């Protein structure tokens, strides 16, 4: 340890740490230093590097004893201490020793390659692009595992729910179609028209170009969303884990869900509303909200002004009885103290209600956990399908 000459500030101290490897080189990069003032507990972590002295500088330090800890990738962590006098500049050379590496945690699957290749070969044997998703390779795989196979040494694997779900999704032509078909093949035009009219009612767009640029893609996103949610609810595996509402109920719910996206208040209360009024739809609601993370289904913030005077109710042509004044509904719900209490403190409204709500909450927790657990994965798989992790 040697004192450096100088120090512009006569009241504060300066500490200079140079890090040296065993072979005498300066250790640079991937270095993390903590300098702590023992008396006050104050810490410094910055990396102010001094080119000339090849050292890390800690200036404006108070006097007293300092502890320092150096963490450098590839080296053993090192600790030390130094006493600084008021106005002093001190240099400390820290010798770092190479870290003794752990036995690397590498698990070579070379021995399992034959097994893996069996999986891959089965999947890749579908040369035809259409067959690739249409021949249900995962089902083939499962059948393959289930029978006593005489031709391969593959044993029946213990498939997790995630693997089952993934297999079920990627061979579900409805799911794949929802993601790949042009929207005019997905649903009747009336849905797109209804979605467009709702968007134009709920928002004021700044000029025709903005309207064109924002509304059309949004309508497409929402149509896909609608079709995809339906496809997922009807998926064999997902359907087996949640109550599958009848078609009209499902349609109504997804339309209501989409409508709520244009009203922040409503967007917030719809999940509560569903839990209270349509507990059996709660898992579908969760599914839709999980999926929403994959979709640009909302009007981009700042791209349009909410049209508060516009009615959020709208009639969907194919659903004669479907008319929701959603704004009114949300206002009622927001103001309804009983509704709030029902959600937050269920044990206030008498035994029947208490029992009903408690049972409902348990049921929701159970189903919600199951579905959300599955969807946490299915969402990522759908993201995979959409290739969203790739650079666009």
């Amino acid at each position, binding site marked *: 340890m040697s004192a450096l000459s100088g120090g512009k500030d006569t009241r504060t101290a300066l500490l200079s740490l140079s890090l040296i490897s065993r072979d005498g080189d300066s250790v640079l990069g*991937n270095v993390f230093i*903590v300098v702590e003032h023992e008396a006050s507990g104050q810490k410094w972590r910055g990396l102010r590097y001094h080119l000339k002295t090849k050292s890390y500088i800690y200036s404006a330090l108070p006097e007293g004893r300092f502890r320092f800890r150096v963490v450098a990738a590839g080296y053993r962590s090192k600790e030390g201490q130094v006493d600084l006098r008021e106005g002093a500049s001190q240099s400390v050379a820290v010798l770092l020793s190479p870290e003794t590496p*752990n036995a690397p945690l590498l698990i070579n699957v070379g021995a399992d*390659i034959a097994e893996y290749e069996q999986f891959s070969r089965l999947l*890749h044997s579908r040369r035809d692009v259409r067959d*690739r998703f249409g021949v249900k390779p995962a089902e083939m795989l499962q059948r393959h595992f289930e029978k006593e196979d005489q031709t391969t040494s593959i044993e029946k694997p213990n498939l997790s729910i995630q693997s089952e779900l993934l297999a079920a999704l990627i061979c579900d032509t409805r799911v794949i179609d929802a993601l790949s078909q042009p929207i005019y093949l997905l649903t009747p035009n009336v849905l797109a028209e209804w979605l467009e009219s709702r968007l134009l009612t709920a928002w004021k767009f700044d000029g025709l170009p903005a309207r064109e640029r924002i509304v059309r893609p949004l309508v497409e996103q929402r149509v*896909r969303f609608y079709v995809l949610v339906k496809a997922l609810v009807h998926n064999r595996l997902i359907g087996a884990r949640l109550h599958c509402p009848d078609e009209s109920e499902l349609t109504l719910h997804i339309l209501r869900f989409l409508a709520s996206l244009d009203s922040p208040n409503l967007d917030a209360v719809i999940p509560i509303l569903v839990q209270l009024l349509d507990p059996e739809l709660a898992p579908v609601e969760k599914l839709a909200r999980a999926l929403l993370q994959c979709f640009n289904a909302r009007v981009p913030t*700042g791209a349009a002004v909410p049209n508060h005077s516009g009615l959020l109710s709208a009639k969907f042509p194919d659903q004669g009885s479907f008319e929701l004044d959603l704004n009114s509904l949300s206002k009622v719900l927001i103001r309804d103290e009983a509704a709030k209490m029902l959600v937050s403190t269920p044990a206030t409204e008498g035994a029947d209600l208490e029992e009903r709500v408690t049972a409902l909450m348990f049921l929701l927790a159970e189903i919600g956990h199951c579905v959300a657990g599955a969807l946490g994965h299915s969402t990522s798989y759908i993201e995979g399908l959409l290739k969203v*992790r790739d*650079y666009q």
Partner: protein
Amino acid sequence: MNFPGRLPTTLTILPTYNCTAACENCCFGSHPGIEQRIPLARILDYIDQAAEMKSVRLLVFSGGECFTLGEELVIAIAHATVRGIAARCVTNGYWATSDERAHERLEPLRRAGLRELNISTGDYHQQFVKPSKVVTGAIAAVRLGMKVVVVVESRKGRGFTAEHLYSDDRFAALAANSKNSNLISVIESPWISMQQADAVEHASLALTNKANLHTKKGCDSVLNTIVVTPSEQLGACCGLTREQIPEMHVGSLRDTSLQELFQKAVQDFLKIWIFVEGPEQILAWAAAKDKGIDWENKYSHHCDACRALYADEKVRRVIREHYHEKKEDILLRFALLNNFGDYSNDEPPRKLVTIAPRTARSQKVMSAGAGGLTTNTAAADHPA
């Protein structure tokens, strides 16, 4: 052994850890005193090798501060563009000292083919680069038609947030212009500790536990993005803590090709497992086997959890002793994932409609225009 279907899509080159800034807890401990740098000829060679793999479609230049490469950065990006590889640069924006200067720096890069610029900022970065430079750089890039992602450090008790960017009139105007809505976005990304756990605090809601475990996904970086470090090692991911995980260093590119090293990496079951399920799920699984493993409410970021997975001797032991219980399931899912991605090298994928912007990790994204935080994700290569 060539694993069918699994090839990297992104090459990240970290040409140097030299940086004009020296941020506390920078993931690579970058600072101005670091001199090591990959020579241009080697950078071009790595781009050629990546192009030969055919699966790589994106080249990311990060660091360190990649703009310190000067003209070499332009040459390298042009080299990638000619080979059909898109380019992204990650920078702290130090060069955007004025509108004119920013334009001068970006215009040659744009002509070379640069289409996306990521600019990092936040409390720590701002000790070295003022937010006004970030805004100037973003404006210049958008004017040139580049996509800009501003990445803001996120941690508990921070002073600067994404909202503050929008309080800059110029940035607000840029974001409010509907012409730019597809070009500019702001991401909040966890700033994690590289030394002591208490060095960076995170809000409790951001931490992984049993209640939110189901939302944790597989790692989209490992085996998907490969990294060339300044010491010309191949990294198997572009994670923030990769330098602290020896197993993520696959080998030296000075004596082995990029493709060979990648094939070596993809034979490691643990990397495959991390790709399929993510480090948080593995930690939780290990904790179920050994109650002494403490994992809840500690990690806010994939990479933080991954570092813990590799560093905790208890976790390592459980993995070594019990990995075979997961092997078949994980390998099957890996095969399935590869099958419907577009990574396969023997046939074209079915065209799927993209319905969301690029997403990857659990980070908050603000789209153009103020307000409206939505849960979304973004790539993890933002060490600048």
